[in-house]
């Protein structure tokens, strides 16, 4: 019988620890499929974050380094500068990348490190049990903003894709979503383009994925998907923000 659907070679058979309805697993799968499609399994080094995806190194069957919280872009810089022949990507949450690791991501992008960043924005700190993230929406309730995010004291959520696309250095920056099959298909195309730029040694690449956290949003999976669509997408518009060919496009 012909197999029409199977696990990508770049993924291990380990069962993930992600909650039901969490889209971290879908994003892992897209990475696995693309590593297969580009035939990169044997020349890839992934850098895992501190966050719910800390154990990504167990789920993707490629060489991996587990970084300190927020430092993945610096770790990836070290790998890529040491071994420019390798395909190097980081996988980071919004607390990891946009809060504690803000300095590392901006400077890696600004130096034009030839790495790929998979940025998973679920508007919350998942791993530590649902605290406010720099991406938490105005009025969104979390365990550390029980009255809802007050923009007077916490500021507005940071749009990382827009912020990074304002840098002059060449890069590919996009935002996609993982909440529906249509969006996942589109996300894969965008991530494929991003990985392609690294394969050809072109530029820094970052794809921001809007992602669900049903557990800490306090919503059942289907409701979480709807909440993402109704609340996150209006604040975090999807699209391509910057390409090495056209510069800033959005």
């Amino acid at each position, binding site marked *: 019988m012909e197999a029409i659907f199977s696990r990508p070679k770049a993924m291990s058979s380990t069962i993930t620890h992600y909650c039901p309805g969490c889209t971290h697993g879908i994003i892992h799968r897209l990475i696995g499929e693309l590593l297969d499609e580009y035939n990169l399994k044997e020349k*890839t*080094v992934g850098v*895992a974050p501190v966050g719910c995806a800390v154990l990504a190194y167990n789920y993707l069957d*490629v060489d*991996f*380094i587990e970084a300190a919280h927020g*430092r993945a872009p610096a770790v990836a810089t*070290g790998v890529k*500068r040491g071994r420019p022949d390798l395909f190097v990507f980081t996988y980071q949450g919004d607390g990891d990348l946009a809060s504690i690791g803000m300095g590392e991501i901006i*400077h890696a992008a600004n130096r034009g490190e030839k790495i790929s960043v998979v940025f998973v924005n679920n508007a919350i700190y998942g791993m530590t049990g649902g605290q406010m993230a720099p991406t938490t929406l105005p009025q969104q309730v979390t365990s550390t903003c029980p009255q809802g995010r007050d923009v007077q004291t916490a500021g507005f959520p940071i749009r990382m894709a827009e912020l990074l696309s304002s840098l002059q250095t060449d890069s590919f920056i996009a935002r996609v979503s993982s909440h529906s099959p249509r969006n996942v298909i589109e996300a894969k195309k965008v991530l494929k383009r991003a990985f392609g730029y690294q394969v050809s040694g072109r530029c820094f690449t970052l794809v921001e994925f809007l992602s669900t956290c049903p557990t800490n949003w306090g919503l059942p999976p289907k409701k979480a998907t709807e909440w993402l669509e109704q609340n996150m997408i209006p604040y975090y518009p999807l699209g391509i923000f910057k390409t090495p060919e056209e510069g800033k496009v959005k």
Partner: protein
Amino acid sequence: MAKKLMKGCEALGEAAIQAGCLHFFGYPITPQTEVPEYLSRRLPEVGGVYVQAESEVAASNMIYGCAAAGVRVFTSSSSPGISLMAEAVSYMAGSQLPVVIVNIVRGGPGLGGILPAQSDYWQATRGIGHGDFRVIVLAPSTVQEAADLMIEAFDLADQYRNPVMIIGDGIIGQMMEPVEFKKREKKQLPEKIWAASGAKGRAANKIHSLFLDPVKLEQHNIFLKKKYDEVEKNEQRFELYNTEKPYDLLIVAYGTMARICKTSIALLQEENISIGLARPISLYPYPYKAIQEAARKAKQVLVVELSMGQMIDDVRLAVEGQRPVHFYGRSGGMVPSPEEVCRELKRILAQKT
């Protein structure tokens, strides 16, 4: 290679290149900025990579990544910068990565000053960051020794899969002295089969310090402890000076301070006062036994440091209360003259014991 007049910082940079380390990530800070300056010029000439990081936090995490990929790498900084590196040092020790870190110590705490000090002894010898781990720490007292130890540091790092720190002070970093990079035999070192360098024809390697299962984390800690036991058994380095003939008092000092004390000892020699010196070269592993034996031959011990008294803790551990242990130190960038140390020695010797 012929002898060349070099600043300590430049000699450290050149020694790294001679050791086959062609990757450097760092951030400027006085009094070690000559290291990144030298390497930003020199590394491109030899096909190496120099990256100026956005901070010491980033620089230390860059060496984490580079070392994890199996590449020889080092960074250099001074006290406030080393504090920022504490996080990555802990991760690198936990995931057993070979890196070399230079600390050209300046006075503290806080922003402190920029002049020579030895006030980071505790930080360096007690692991630097969080967790149960050790960093091998080597303390040169001349520019030549700095270059020699730097080259050795890379081999030690590879051999034990552990961070190694070269600790100096502003005098070692800034002083110009003749240096010779001798041809040396290449050490047989284990292949880096553990590196995250692309899983070609093998199972994927995972570099991590996370062990959620307490049984596994304890096993990991026991494994690391065994490694440190080996380091303590094999890698103690020290110099004994003027200890062949009987001496009344033993000085224990390291780095620049030991060098000043040698002059004090020579000055007192002219007055027929005999003083011995024990100079730890490896601050971790600390040469406890050598210090103890040298101390037993004296009536009393004087620890001299460019700090308010940090290494004295280890000297006391070595001496185990068998001899009185005195302390003399200057801090904040103040460096005592040989005569000043002589005065202190005479004062102690004049006391009734």
